[in-house]
């Protein structure tokens, strides 16, 4: 039996997991997806009966933090079965094959599983100068993605790079990096946002596709609603301090020790949609805000350009570093005030003769002025 005819359950048992482990995993996945408990059976059944979905996982311009995150997911089965074994048929950083053998395995998967495999892309695609900034096996990443996407069942954009371009697309974007959705149309596409995305979220999206045979419900920016419908701010445990107006002002002040809200430290929680506050990271150990650092908004488009990370207001473009909208606004306010004063003085000088005239004879003669 080839690897791809086996079910996830077969693979798990083969790996030495017990049925009990498997059921726990199914329950966890159902919970992550926000399904009611009656659906645990549905998830388990899908994993038990459906053959694994072939996955091609491509790496473009990226730092591999998405892969790193994924293999650190809290349940070993996630990495073991969904990954190795969602059976990555091709992934540059983890596959055993190399060189021509690897490229062949990519071609084989595309050919053998036409319309059935999932294309997961980690990284952005450089388009400038015909895409020379990212070439693998003699092809540009642009070509590779195009070829692989053509026959894919769905495209998963892992992380901010693939969903929004991340740091490569930050100004001035020298390589002309674009996210996947700017390049590919006509395919179901899911932006699994974050830098990196939370491992359980990544796994959850795959399990959803497997269980229900369709892609999960998405928000307007194509992020799965189950994980990205609420702001970090809405699930943040420091939120009562926000409402009470209790803010940290510097990382070493008393308020920081008391665990007050990090809003004034530039926390982007109020403008960032992600599940960090609920799922947390590394097996639910912590997340940035819990360890005293403001959210930098890594699951949002253009978060590098909307800096700095440690002030609430974004730098105002075109006016140099450290110019916020407030500084520019205040400057314009002063300029306006000066303008008004000058205008008032000029008006009075010009109208003095008129005033004198009118004071002399009260009847209106303004028209002649």
């Amino acid at each position, binding site marked *: 039996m080839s690897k791809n005819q086996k079910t996830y359950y077969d693979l798990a048992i083969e790996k030495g997991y017990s049925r009990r482990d498997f059921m726990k995993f199914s329950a966890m996945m159902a919970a992550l997806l926000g399904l009611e408990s009656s659906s645990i059976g549905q998830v388990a059944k899908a994993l038990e009966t459906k053959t694994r979905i072939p996955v091609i996982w491509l790496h473009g311009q990226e730092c591999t933090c998405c892969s790193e995150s994924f293999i650190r997911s809290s349940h070993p089965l996630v990495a073991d079965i969904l990954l190795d074994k969602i059976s990555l048929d091709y992934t540059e950083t983890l596959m055993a094959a190399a060189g021509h053998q690897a490229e062949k395995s990519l071609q084989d998967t595309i050919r053998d599983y036409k319309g059935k495999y999932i294309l997961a892309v980690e990284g952005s695609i450089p388009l400038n100068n015909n895409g020379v900034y990212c070439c693998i096996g003699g092809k540009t990443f642009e070509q590779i993605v195009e070829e692989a996407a053509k026959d894919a069942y769905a495209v998963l954009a892992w992380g901010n790079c693939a969903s929004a371009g991340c740091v490569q697309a930050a100004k001035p974007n020298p390589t002309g990096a674009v996210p996947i959705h700017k390049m590919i149309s006509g395919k179901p596409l899911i932006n699994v946002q974050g830098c990196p995305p939370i491992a359980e979220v990544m796994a959850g999206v795959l399990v959803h596709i497997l269980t229900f045979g369709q892609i999960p419900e998405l928000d307007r920016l194509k992020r799965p609603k189950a994980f990205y419908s609420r702001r970090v701010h809405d699930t943040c445990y420091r939120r*009562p301090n926000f409402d009470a107006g209790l803010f940290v002002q510097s990382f070493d002040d008393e308020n920081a020790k008391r665990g007050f809200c990090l809003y004034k430290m530039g926390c982007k929680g109020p*403008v960032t949609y992600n599940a960090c506050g609920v799922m947390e990271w590394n097996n639910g150990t912590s997340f940035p805000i819990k360890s005293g650092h403001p959210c930098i908004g890594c699951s949002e*488009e253009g978060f590098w350009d909307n800096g700095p990370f440690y002030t*609430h207001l974004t730098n105002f473009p075109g006016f140099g570093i450290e110019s916020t909208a407030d500084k520019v606004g205040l400057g*314009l306010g002063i300029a*306006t005030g000066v303008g008004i004063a000058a205008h008032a003085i000029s008006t009075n000088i010009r109208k003095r003769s008129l005033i004198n005239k009118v004071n002399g004879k009260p009847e209106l003669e303004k028209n002649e002025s």
Partner: protein
Amino acid sequence: MHPVYVWELPVRFFHWINALSIVALAVTGFIIGDPPAIQSATEASFSYWFGTVRIIHFIAAYVFFFNFVFRIYWGFVGNRFANWKNFIPYTKRSWIDMWEIIRVDILQIKSADNPNLGHNALASFTYFITFLAFLLQVLTGFGIYATTSSAWLPALFAWVPAMLGGDMVTRDIHHLMMWVFALFAMVHVYLVFYHDYIDWNGTTSSIIGGWKFQEEGKEEREKELDK
């Protein structure tokens, strides 16, 4: 001099509700954007002041919004000074008038008198721009408000942040726009006083009582010009 009823009661109400809600929105908005930091050993459960500032902002936002919607309606049913057509410079005449006003009133390189009784052409155009600013502020404001509310009205604006590329930029634009309102208010108040002073037509009190004053025969002249 004879009085002309220029601003009807609903227009005057619009103006003052608008002014008050904008002041409330700008003040609370500024606090939301840059809250004063208070060193405090208190527990969060004893205080809610920031939440209160935000709720005032949101209530004022609703007032501002419905008042704005009402004014648009009044632009279709109100008198000729309130009509929407005043605000959009679609004739050549209004552009010529605008240039004239820039030379006479702003640059003061030419003297003449101002034939308009309602808004002058430049003012009208400025208000048109201001209306667009209102619109942008409503769009961005309700856009970022949408996810935090379960009401249907804000939900109608959920597409705004998606179109602009997320809440981050939307919120920045919203913040920046506050300054547009602040600058407008400064210039607006000054010009009201200026026109009162120069044109002697009771501009300042007109927005309270509704009456402006016009020299005899001026109306005929204006009609003449309109032809």
